[in-house]
């Protein structure tokens, strides 16, 4: 690693030096010290206290958390065919209605008219795409089932082989 100190020394002092060694990954907070540590701790404590209060709207906040789950980042680990199929299944929920939001009222109205005019076509297409998606996930499920059966069989055979080898060694 070569970094021109001459170049970096002239940059804002908080930028290259303090944070270079910090373990910052996207999606996770940095491990290094952050400013306002005591305030952050107080806020977290206050949040815990609020949740413990009898008048805390648990039902609504549970609903908020449940809705948040819908946005959870789901990625299939390499080799996790079931998780990959679940992701595929999620994508089969194709929407026929395109968004028509626009800051310009006229454009929004025009989009609405176009959407209505072509709905019979887009609906027909999305229905077929959904069917194709479900068929694809069925293939995936069938393949996963078969692979899992084969894996079970391989494990059985490996165990049998080990027993046979063990008997011969004895």
């Amino acid at each position, binding site marked *: 690693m070569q970094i*021109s100190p001459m170049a970096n020394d002239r940059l804002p002092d908080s930028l290259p030096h303090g944070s*270079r060694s910090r373990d910052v990954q996207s999606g996770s*907070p940095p491990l290094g010290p952050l400013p306002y540590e005591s305030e952050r701790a*107080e806020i977290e404590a206050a*949040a815990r206290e609020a949740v413990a209060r009898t008048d805390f709207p648990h039902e609504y*906040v549970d609903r908020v958390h449940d809705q948040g789950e819908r*946005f959870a980042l789901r990625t299939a680990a390499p080799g996790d065919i079931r998780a990959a199929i679940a992701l595929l299944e999620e994508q089969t929920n194709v929407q026929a209605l395109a968004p028509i939001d626009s800051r310009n009222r006229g454009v929004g109205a025009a989009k609405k008219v176009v959407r209505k005019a072509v709905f019979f076509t887009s609906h027909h297409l999305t229905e077929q795409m959904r069917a194709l998606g479900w068929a694809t996930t069925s293939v995936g499920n069938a393949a996963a089932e078969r692979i899992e059966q084969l894996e079970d069989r391989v494990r059985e055979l490996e165990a049998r082989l080990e027993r046979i080898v063990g008997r011969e060694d004895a």
Partner: protein
Amino acid sequence: MHTLRLRKLLRDAGFESDIYAVDAHADVRSQALDPRTFRDRVTGSVDPWILYHFSIGSPLFDLVRDLDVPLALDYHNITDAKYFWRWEPRAATSMMEGRRQLATAAPAVRFALADSAFNERELIELHCPRTAVAPILIDFADYDTAPDGALLARRERARAHGGTDWLAVGRIAPNKCQHDVLLAFAVYRRVHDPRARLTLVGGQSAGLYWQALHRLAEDLDISAAVTFTDSVSHAELMACYRSSDVFILLSEHEGFNVPVLEAMHFGVPVVAYASSAVPDTAGDGALLLTDKDPVVVATAVERLRSDASLRGALVDAGRKRVERFSIAHTGPQLLDTLRTLMKETG
């Protein structure tokens, strides 16, 4: 804007500098030249260099790599494709392609500039031979222009009835996690301030995500209190900053993030999730959270609303941060860095 400012900086310093681009935004298309004309244009030039602005996969990179001209990168980061597969697979594919191109480019270029230490670390991990941090060039004088009067008046009328105004600025994109902002806002309204309002400024970059956010607002019974502005004009953006109580950023992937500094410029206190490059940019000018559970975020906003001393400290620190990132400082730094690296690696 960064590229335009950099060109001006270079021209003012006596360099010949032009911008070559494919798919330039309509507003700046006239400023860009066709990359296919580069070779003809530089014939006869003394010591030509290419500074390639890297942020997503592009066929332009393959064209640039094949030119026999010293190549340097200005790396603005590439969003992790994992955030986009579910919502906008085409964008995810471009991001994957960008990562592939970056892995090839980083070890082969003469040097690379990075907007933040976070970006620089990625370059170092990819064995880039020389790197330096050079923040995005921001001219805060651009923000001292008149806001959209009608929008500001409308927002001020709403504010007169009370209620905290939350503001989030940035492309509506899955990595920026506007859904987390909605979740926290919903809790805030229910627990702390039933009259609070949220404005989400930013154009959509994933239609399905955009739709899902609208559905989420409806499902949580907050749609009447949430405004999705889509893309706004500069004057409208100024009006939003001038009529907000708190700026909120719960993004999980940022290479720099200009809006955080914009909010600081307008004295709007910032609550942000400490991910990726956000701590590098925000520093002590923002209340950085390591947990973005909706209850924690809502409590943080309430703390800022009720604690004038903390709010004042953040705003003061934010103004210093703005000073530090103003082009008056970063411009000469970037020029010095470029001169040094070009001299040492040319």
